[in-house]
């Protein structure tokens, strides 16, 4: 584990509500520079809510969040994003009325340190399928193509932390493999990642650390192999 001074994201005692329903009950989380964190849990346990809270999308929230040393507890989503956080949402969030090309270049932004390595060209190389559909509107893509587009778009913002919520959903096995490779590459290049994925085994092999959520609380956490080895894991994931 990285030393605590290198945490790029620190969140403590996060609570979140949707209307009157209390979804997150005091979650602590920290992500180090270049670290990969896996977030596990069954359907509806609050994984996406936690992510959306960190990103500032859930307005009814409580707790303290710092990102790159700045307090973002009450920050608005675009301010969080500009600090260098990219988001691949579940359900993809591709803009249906923009072409593939437009979906990509509208997002392009240099990294905080001026990085510019995820160029338009490189994204298309990574996802050749997109290259063939450049002028198609987002709405006209197949499910998997949308997923690729969403990841590619996130990369073009040159983030320091990339959050992938079910990023491999609907992708063909070969592409999934590619994605995991991309994730490794991202990790190797020093970008931190927070991953939610239904393939928990794969997550646990990729991640440095993992957290398991149950009903809005962290019930298990630790190094990936510790979590993978925990006898309680099967219970929490219902397998």
């Amino acid at each position, binding site marked *: 584990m990285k030393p605590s001074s290198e945490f790029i994201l620190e969140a403590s005692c996060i609570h979140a509500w949707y209307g009157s329903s209390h979804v997150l009950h005091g979650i602590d989380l920290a992500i180090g520079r270049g670290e990969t964190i896996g977030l596990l849990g069954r*359907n509806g346990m609050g994984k996406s809510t936690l992510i959306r809270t960190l990103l500032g999308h859930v307005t009814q929230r409580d707790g303290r969040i710092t990102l790159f040393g700045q307090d973002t507890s009450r920050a608005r989503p675009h301010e969080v994003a500009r600090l260098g956080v990219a988001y691949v949402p579940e359900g993809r969030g591709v803009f249906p009325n923009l072409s593939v090309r437009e979906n990509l270049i509208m997002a392009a932004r240099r990294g905080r340190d001026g990085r510019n390595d995820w160029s338009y060209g490189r994204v298309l190389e990574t996802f050749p*399928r997109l290259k063939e559909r450049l002028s198609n509107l987002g709405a006209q893509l*197949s*499910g998997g193509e949308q997923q690729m587009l969403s990841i590619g778009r996130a990369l073009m913002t040159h983030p320091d932390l990339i959050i992938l919520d079910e990023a491999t*959903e609907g992708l063909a*096995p070969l592409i999934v493999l590619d994605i995991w490779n991309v994730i490794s590459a991202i990790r190797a290049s020093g970008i931190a990642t927070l991953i939610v994925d*239904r393939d928990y085994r794969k997550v646990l092999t990729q991640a440095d650390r993992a957290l398991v959520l149950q009903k809005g609380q962290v019930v298990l956490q630790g190094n990936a192999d510790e979590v993978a080895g925990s006898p309680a894991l099967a219970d929490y994931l219902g397998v």
Partner: protein
Amino acid sequence: MKPSEISSDVSPEVLLRGREITRRWGGLLALNGVSLDLARGSVHAVIGTNGAGKSTLINILSGEIPPSSGSVELLGQEVTGWTQPRRARLGLGRSYQRNTIYPSFSVFENCRLAAQAATQKPWQWWRSAQHCDASLSAAHDAASRAGLNDLLDRPAGLLSHGQKRQLEIAMCLATAPQVLLLDEPLAGMGAEETERMLALLAELKPGHAILLVEHDMDAVFRIAERITVMVNGAVIASDTPAGIRSNPQVQAAYLGDH
């Protein structure tokens, strides 16, 4: 029709048949002469690269979009020119890859409305919809099969992503179809729900013909009798699971080291 009412035949009875289906989107040939049979009592998986045309195939079979050429036969009837609702009423059910639910209705109402399709009777304007026992019980049945018993009163829009995926299946079941076209039903589901889903499919299999589009290979190989592999709009192989697993072309194009 309830699954129990159908005697399981020995000789496979083809419920849905697609013949030489072709579909163009502008210059793109999304489907190129695809034919396939769905027999009662079997799960037929369609796998393939992203953008291969799997969802397009389901859309054409279910009547959501017309084919550029080719024909569809449902329960022995030629239905190529039929609208989607008409096919659905004959016994075709589908789920969507992207959630297609009624977000402002409760989970139960989502199911009930789907079940109501079987007994529409719109002219009975004085009778409350909640008094139709047939659709109420069908809805309860479908919801509990999909594992949504605890969430019946929740507005569907407030479900988590995985829960919405479960609802998607429940709504498909609520219409009591004989032919099920499932577009990536496991996507977004957790491990537990995946298991439940596979068990459900196994349970449905006897009375139904099921088309399963899925990228979860473990699941596909566990449950499918037959697998069709598509790449760029064309079928490159159609075989038993074992045959597919060992097909080098399929490995190169789709499976990788699976």
